[in-house]
């Protein structure tokens, strides 16, 4: 039986300057699940990057031990280590004039001879990494010509061309829109499945991590590290606690925040209808501060979402004891709602009453 890929024992990470030590996180003892994508999550500044840099041997740990395949990290020869572990770091504005191909080819560095000549298998690995990340078309582009997302994919391809057992990534999805975030994470997860790779990735977006990671490492306050399947951490309340504040409650599944305590709805409405339009309408109602009536709850009106074929306005609003209104878009709907259920109750003066001023 082979030794576990990565094991941490009483690891403390942080910075040392002279005799002063600033511990960022730790101590914690745990192993990384092999062949899985583990997402490292936690609030800003909690030490995700510090931990990843320590695992890349870019900075020494403050205490404890780290083992790669049973051998202490520090005992690995640097070349051998580089053939097993590769990284995507958080720095991005580098080598703007380099072409994508040259960047990815640098990933072959630990595998090539002293001149760095690419053999046939090196070229194959580069081509493979390029095509997996759909960057083949960009091979001759310079990095400064790429968008943030494309550049990020290029750096990920570089790390992949290194053909590591363990891939460490520091916020590879920062600056990406949601689609590209999800794409990147699912792509990495597929790589774990298809190439027997193990990925540890720091992710900022908690709902992406919850939905798409196999496993979570959660850096909590006081530098502790909780692990588990995403759902385990939701059930234990750890995830919700971590990102909630005194006034806002975090829902890890939806990635949305809700105000704590008794919410006063502007009104409660029943929603009828089907499909995406209904979901959007409900979401809009919640956003605008309306409650959605379920079952026999009291309601102050009905919103009917008509099928697309209805034409001429899909949203039919029927306030209790009022005139029926039909609007074409959510924007118009929210204006109509503002008119029916004013945010500022009628009768409140719009501006403070002028103070009568006498001449002195």
């Amino acid at each position: 039986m082979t030794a576990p890929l990565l094991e941490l024992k009483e690891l403390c990470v942080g910075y040392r300057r002279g005799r002063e030590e600033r511990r960022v996180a730790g101590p914690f003892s745990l192993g990384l699940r092999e062949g899985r994508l583990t997402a490292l999550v936690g609030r800003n500044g909690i030490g995700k990057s510090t931990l990843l840099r320590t695992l890349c041997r870019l900075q020494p740990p403050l205490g404890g031990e780290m083992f790669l395949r049973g051998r202490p990290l520090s005992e690995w020869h640097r070349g051998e280590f580089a053939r097993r572990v590769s990284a995507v770091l958080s720095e991005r504005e580098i080598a703007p004039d380099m072409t994508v191909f040259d960047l990815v080819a640098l990933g072959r560095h630990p595998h090539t001879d002293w001149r760095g000549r690419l053999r046939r298998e090196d070229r194959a690995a580069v081509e493979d990494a390029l095509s997996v990340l759909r960057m083949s078309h960009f091979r001759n582009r310079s990095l400064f010509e790429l968008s943030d997302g494309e550049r990020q994919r290029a750096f990920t391809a570089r790390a992949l061309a290194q053909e590591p057992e363990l891939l460490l990534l520091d916020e590879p999805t920062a600056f990406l829109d949601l689609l590209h975030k999800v794409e990147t994470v699912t792509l990495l997860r597929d790589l774990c499945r298809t190439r027997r790779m193990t990925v540890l990735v720091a992710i900022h977006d908690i709902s992406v991590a919850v939905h798409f990671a196999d496993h979570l490492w959660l850096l909590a306050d006081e530098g502790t590290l909780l692990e588990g399947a995403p759902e385990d951490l939701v059930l234990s309340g750890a995830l919700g606690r971590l990102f909630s504040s005194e006034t806002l409650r975090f829902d890890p599944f939806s990635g949305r925040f809700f105000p704590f305590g008794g919410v006063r709805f502007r009104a409660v409405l029943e929603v009828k209808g089907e499909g995406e339009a209904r979901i959007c309408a409900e979401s809009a109602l919640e956003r605008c501060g309306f409650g959605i009536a379920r079952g026999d709850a009291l309601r102050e009106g009905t919103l009917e979402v008509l099928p697309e074929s209805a034409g001429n306005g899909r949203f039919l609003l029927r306030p209790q004891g009022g005139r029926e209104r039909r609007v074409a878009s959510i924007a118009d709907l929210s204006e109509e709602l503002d008119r029916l259920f004013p945010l500022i109750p009628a009768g409140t003066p719009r501006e403070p009453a002028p103070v009568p001023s006498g001449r002195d």
Partner: protein
Amino acid sequence: MNERFFSGEEQEARDRRARRLLLLLGVVLLFAFAADVLFGSVALSPGQVLASLFRGGAGMSPEDLIVLRFRLPRALTALLAGSALAVAGLSMQTLFANPLAGPFVLGVDAGASLGVALVLLAADLAGPGLGARFAALGGVAAASWAGSLAVLLLILVVASRVRSGTVLLILGLMFGQAVNSLVTVLLHFSSAQRAHGYLAWSFGSFSSTSWPQVATMALGILPALLAGYFLTKPLNALLLGERYARTLGVPVERVRMGLIGVTAFLSGSVTAFCGPIAFLGIATPHLCRGLLRCEDHRLLLPACIAAGGGMALAADMLSHAPGSALLLPVNAVTSLLGAPVVVWVVLRRRGGTS
């Protein structure tokens, strides 16, 4: 379907283009070398020059003397100096990830200047006769070498303790400034004649080298160039920054020491025999990157050798203003000649944007 095959060809086409350009640079270098030997203050026909080259031995005519004693060593000096400075500049620019870095960024020239200034001042104190004899014996070159070596040792000691490249760069700059002000103080207290001697040295020149001096210079430069070639792979990795280089298994500290050593040897050797030659070391790497349109040091390093040598030869030729007795300072010519070329290449490459 054939996309992979097709783009592989495209890749090779790019490499071929770079190799062709490299070859072209080599040819240009040969021409520049020939031209520098053929043209000079005294007008000689190509036939005369060729005849002189293959005569040698006893019974040399004045023409033979001009070609063998002056033009050939001068051209070789320019060639060596240009390549050395270009490679030194390339190494420093990549090591410090700074496009403005050059061969003298760590203060090697300041050390050399201090050595030269000290010798000139000492010559003043020792009396004019002794001073002149010392200078004639290559004392200036020796002093310059000693100064460079002292700086090199100091930098290596500091570099072994400092982890950050930026800090090292700042320390080098500060050190250079401090030493330069020492030189100013020394000059202030030396005679006008000596001060002028220093000034002439600081203008740079390829024409004051004898054959033994050329040989000494080559002995310092050629091994350093070879050592530089062995560092091209880590240099490529360093393009991604020190952190990425480390994750690729590059022993960054050792490579840094190696690069500093190579650079100090290259620029120290040049400064000893030619004075502080400005501009070439900073400009040539940019010129090569623009021409080859790549960042691969395995191509850039030979390109820098060829282009640096060629530019130094051209500058030398122009500084001698062929057919006239006029002699311009090399430093003025390199900058006047080179700046527009580099501006053109850099602007063309990025289309003037970003």
